[in-house]
């Protein structure tokens, strides 16, 4: 017994080390992807409050360029105001006197914390559950695509940026309408890669890439970027396309969270097929 106590005393710091290290690794395992545990939500809430205070100072420096982008966006929206609506009824008479039903709603939000230098990057926004944000909503900015919400607390939400190895939105060439998958290979935050575009269709440098609307998150036609260069992968018969993102993720401040009213319906359809 005496020896045991001496042993424990002598090596107690090793046990302490194992305990702390084990706990840290446990947290990593719990939060590495969806970051959905209560700890993260709480931590987000606390960090979010402090971050929103500090970022409110830095926001002043970018006010001019942000305002300019917002004005441009307003002008663009005014020009195509029916774009976020789908035709709902083909009959000329109906119970409700509208032929359009709203599919997308936009919640405006401000970026209060962001990373762009890591392999997997996240943004934190100042809107949360209380403002109607839920998981897997798309996030866009006035100049293009931003990411998908992966975790929500009461007042804040965490967005998986397109600068993430698990982010694979479906995109298309606005000229040829051929679609592919957007991935990010790390490193330069202004450069993305598109795979799965068949090399039988000619591409042009400078072609505009937009979202295809095939994934239920992003509405169709959100700007992604422009083609910078491409080469054919002879083995697979697909292009490897390098694009320049239209959004400067380092300067990102104001974004919109996209709410898709038909998402459940669309999900149900695919689910039905999988169940069969």
């Amino acid at each position, binding site marked *: 017994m005496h020896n045991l106590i001496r042993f424990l005393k002598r090596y107690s710091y090793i046990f302490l*080390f194992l305990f*702390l290290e084990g706990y840290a690794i446990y947290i990593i395992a719990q*939060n590495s992807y969806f970051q959905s545990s209560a700890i993260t939500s709480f931590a987000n809430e606390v960090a979010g409050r402090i971050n929103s205070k500090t970022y409110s100072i830095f926001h002043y420096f970018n006010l001019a360029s942000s305002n300019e982008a917002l004005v441009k966006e307003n002008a663009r929206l005014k020009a195509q105001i029916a774009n976020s609506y789908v035709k709902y009824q083909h009959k000329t008479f109906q119970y409700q006197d509208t032929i359009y039903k709203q599919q997308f709603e936009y919640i405006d939000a401000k970026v209060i914390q962001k*990373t762009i*230098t*890591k392999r997997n990057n996240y943004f934190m926004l100042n809107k949360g559950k209380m403002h109607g944000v839920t998981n897997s909503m798309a996030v866009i900015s006035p100049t293009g695509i931003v990411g998908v919400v992966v975790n929500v607390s009461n007042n804040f939400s965490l967005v998986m940026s397109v600068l993430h190895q698990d982010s694979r939105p479906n995109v298309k060439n606005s000229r040829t309408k051929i679609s592919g998958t957007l991935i990010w290979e790390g490193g330069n935050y202004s450069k993305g890669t598109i795979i799965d575009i068949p090399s039988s269709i000619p591409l042009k440098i400078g072609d505009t890439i937009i979202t295809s609307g095939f994934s239920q998150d992003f509405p169709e036609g959100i700007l992604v970027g422009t083609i910078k260069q491409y080469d054919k992968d002879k083995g697979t018969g697909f292009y490897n396309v390098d694009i320049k993102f239209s959004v400067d993720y380092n300067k990102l401040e104001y974004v919109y969270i996209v709410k898709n009213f038909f998402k459940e319906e669309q999900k149900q359809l695919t689910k039905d097929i999988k169940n069969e």
Partner: protein
Amino acid sequence: MNRKTLIGFIHFILIAAFQIFILNGVEIFGYFNPMIYIWFILMLPTNTPKWLLLVLSFVMGFTIDIFAGQLGFHAAVLTLIGFIRPIFIKFFFSAKDLETSLRPSISEMGLNAFLPYIAILVFIHHFLYFTIEIFSLSEFFYTFLRIICSSIATILIILLFDYLFIRQKGKSTY
């Protein structure tokens, strides 16, 4: 609260704040992510108890984690650094120094001993951090370049700060 505890507390706040509000926003070509919060652990006095070293490592790592939005990564790696630090301290200091409270710094150790001491621990720290963050070998060269670049940036910043703020012999001047 005695003077030493107070100094340690101020170091903690200042270094954590500098890391969180300044360095976490630094972006140079995607390769340089300096992480100087490790300096807090490296500069603790030589007679700091081992258990306190571990607890402080964990708390510092966890603080950085909360603000970086990735729970666990910094805490896990920094706790390991806190665990292996005594081995390096024993190597770089004489047995007599270990009894007294010396702060590892240029003025105490001289640049010739201080540089390898921080360089080795910073490299181990960065190597583990980036490896855990990526968690795959598929982008090995990109990761390795990030580790090298970030380590060099961190070491240079630590040397600069040490030179600027810890000049007096045995005393820290903030």
